[in-house]
């Protein structure tokens, strides 16, 4: 396969994943502002930070309002992580690698782009937001469905999956990075209503507020939430789950090519750490430091994959 094709697949799926994550962050932000009694510009600050675009927002806006923040996250072209920017970039990458995609996968991607372009042509009214966010999740879900249902499990599949999970791990880690302090046992006032709202918002931004209850059978508890998002191998947006997937897809490539790269060692190392630690170890080491370290390793892995497989 061409290095450029591997690169295109990797980024196509990173961008589609990011579009979905941006939608999810907006969803969580909205929810929070509905739950709180007072005005919640701070919440949007957190959302923009989680998305990693607070600086870009400040470059183009004088002050932070929820309406502007939402529009910025949904439609702003100068924001590379806005839903529309991501769908554009994802679809452009899909066009570039079209010969590697099944017709179903391409069509789902193209339709997603066509529909969202119409839906996001102008500022979305507050009343229409839930519907729009739903549509984003549904359309990106259709891409995933077509991809899983029709693609051969070969190197094309592997590079696509690696893109998805590098992005997803980055996203979950960023959410934790911005909100780590509400998960620290020392700071949180267990059971207070403020914490409950914050915790639920974290879970909601990874679509895990329902599954959490099933897994931990109890009320919100900071260490359980951290465990769920970092170490729980059954939670599809946890760091551990992402690394199981990255590692297995890299493993397929190594076997097929008969050759391993630096990326393989890096991924194995991170996975081993996620498997062997308990959440107590993580907290003792320092949640903030742990997450920061993870993000930088995850970035390095992306670079090593790009080098090893000659993306450029």
């Amino acid at each position, binding site marked *: *396969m*061409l*290095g*450029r094709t591997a690169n295109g697949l990797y980024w196509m799926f990173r961008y589609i994943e990011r579009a979905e994550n941006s939608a999810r962050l907006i969803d969580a932000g909205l929810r929070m502002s509905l739950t709180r009694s007072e005005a919640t510009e701070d919440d949007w600050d957190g959302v923009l930070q989680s998305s990693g675009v607070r600086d870009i927002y400040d470059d183009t806006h004088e002050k932070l309002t929820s309406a502007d923040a939402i529009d910025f996250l949904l439609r702003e072209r100068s924001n590379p992580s806005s839903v529309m920017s991501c769908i554009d970039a994802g679809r452009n990458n899909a066009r570039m690698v*079209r*010969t590697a995609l099944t017709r179903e996968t391409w069509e789902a991607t*193209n339709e997603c782009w066509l529909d969202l372009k119409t839906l996001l042509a102008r500022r979305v009214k507050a009343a229409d937001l839930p519907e729009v966010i739903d549509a984003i999740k549904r359309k990106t879900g259709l891409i995933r469905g077509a991809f899983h249902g029709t693609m051969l499990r070969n190197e094309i599949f592997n590079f696509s999956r690696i893109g998805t999970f590098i992005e997803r791990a980055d996203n979950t880690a960023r959410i934790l990075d911005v909100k780590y302090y509400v998960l620290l046992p020392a700071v949180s006032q267990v059971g207070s209503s403020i914490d409950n709202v914050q915790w639920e918002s974290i879970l909601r931004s990874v679509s895990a507020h329902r599954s959490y209850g099933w897994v931990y059978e109890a009320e919100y508890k900071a260490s359980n939430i951290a465990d769920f998002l970092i170490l729980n191998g059954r939670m599809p947006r946890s760091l551990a789950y992402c690394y199981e997937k990255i590692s297995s897809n890299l493993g397929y490539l190594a076997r097929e090519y008969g050759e391993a790269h630096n990326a393989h060692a890096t991924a194995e190392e991170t996975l081993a750490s996620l498997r062997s630690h308990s959440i107590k170890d993580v907290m003792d080491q320092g949640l903030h430091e742990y997450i920061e370290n993870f993000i930088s390793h995850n970035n390095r892995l992306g670079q090593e994959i790009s080098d090893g497989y000659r993306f450029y």
Partner: protein
Amino acid sequence: MMNADNSPRQPYTTYNDWYAAQDRARLIAKSKDAENIFRKTGITFAVYGHADSAEKLIPFDLIPRIISGREWRKLAQGIEQRVIALNAFLDDIYHKQEIIKAGRIPRELIERNVAFLPQMIGFRPPGGVYTHIVGTDIVRTGEDQFYVLEDNARTPSGVSYMLENRETMMQMFPELFHQNRVRPVENYPYLLRQSLASLAPPGCEGKPRVAVLTPGIYNSAYYEHSFLADMMGVELVEGSDLRVIDGKVKMRTTRGYEAIDVLYRRVDDDYLDPLTFKPESALGIPGIMDVYRAGNITIANAPGTGICDDKAIYSYMPEIVEFYTGRKPLLENVPTWRCAEPDSLKYVLENLADLVVKEVHGSGGYGMLVGPTASKKERTAFAEKLKTRPNNYIAQPTLSLSTVPILVNKGIAPRHVDLRPYVLVSDKVQIIPGGLTRVALKAGSLVVNSSQGGGTKDTWVLED
């Protein structure tokens, strides 16, 4: 479609019965469905200069254009003769130049032509084939009367529409294909791949590796490039994927660099090799011309083929065909005035209202004047351009093109069409039975180019 007595022409009789039994509203609904299929699939082209509408659909008309087997055979013979002559002409022009020595073509027409590449002098491509893929533009003016409008011998496009139009028709109206014996076009990608692989260069080791070279996703025909690569099962490469290593053109893969033997390039000559042609080209591969000349890659179509489909050369095609095949051309050329010649220029200026004037190097329907439909002001302005740069123009009469029906809201209406059959040249000449029928959607219009609002339809060649 109709005879003078208003009965359907023979090849249309079965279709006509079917059409008579259709509900028009249903057909119009089907027409919208077809548009949705094209949009969903992303079968689009880009119109340069339209920033916000970067990707456009080509309108599809669902009434097929039908050609009888008998008429097709005659047409195919003429095309084959012409394509053989084109390749012989190119070989001659880049070698002994007998046709110039024989005084049949003026030397300066060749040597001062920008499409003539001195780099090709004395070089013979693998198999002696210069133009592997040709799209001959043809118009019909009456029973068995065909004229060649243009020989597209560089990188003819549109074949993906031929294939997608057929696919769409078979999906929407399967019954029509039971009732009519339509010759298949679907094996084009397979034939193309075979044809390309059969002309692998001498330096090819093992099974020839074919790739399609595209300028990238922003090119107007990108859809077609990816479609053809996909259907042939070969890599779609860009210049940035390729490098010359150890005297071979190699592509950067996830496992390292791998050699390519045959490159079906959809990039113009100028951009192919920055070391040889435009130095600023980022689309090309530095050094590919050296690899080519050393016999380590086949480039299809060969660089420098543009010299044979140039509009100024076109007017010499009857002489060219006769010179190389020893026979009169089977297909007619449209009478052409070369404005470079003073007598012709005078005639053209005097008869501008009846003529179509084209730029010698133009394509896509840009920069032309259609005399009969142009306003007086437009004609006066164009006359000035003609006087300033007569060498840049040729003129032709407007032919009374035959029309075919299209579906409009009120039923069917006649529109002018042309036809581009696709020809593959290897050790043999293969003509795909069908092609791309382009249709001028505006009533009375003669301009069929998709960049100027033309549409397309499925083209049927019937088995007799």
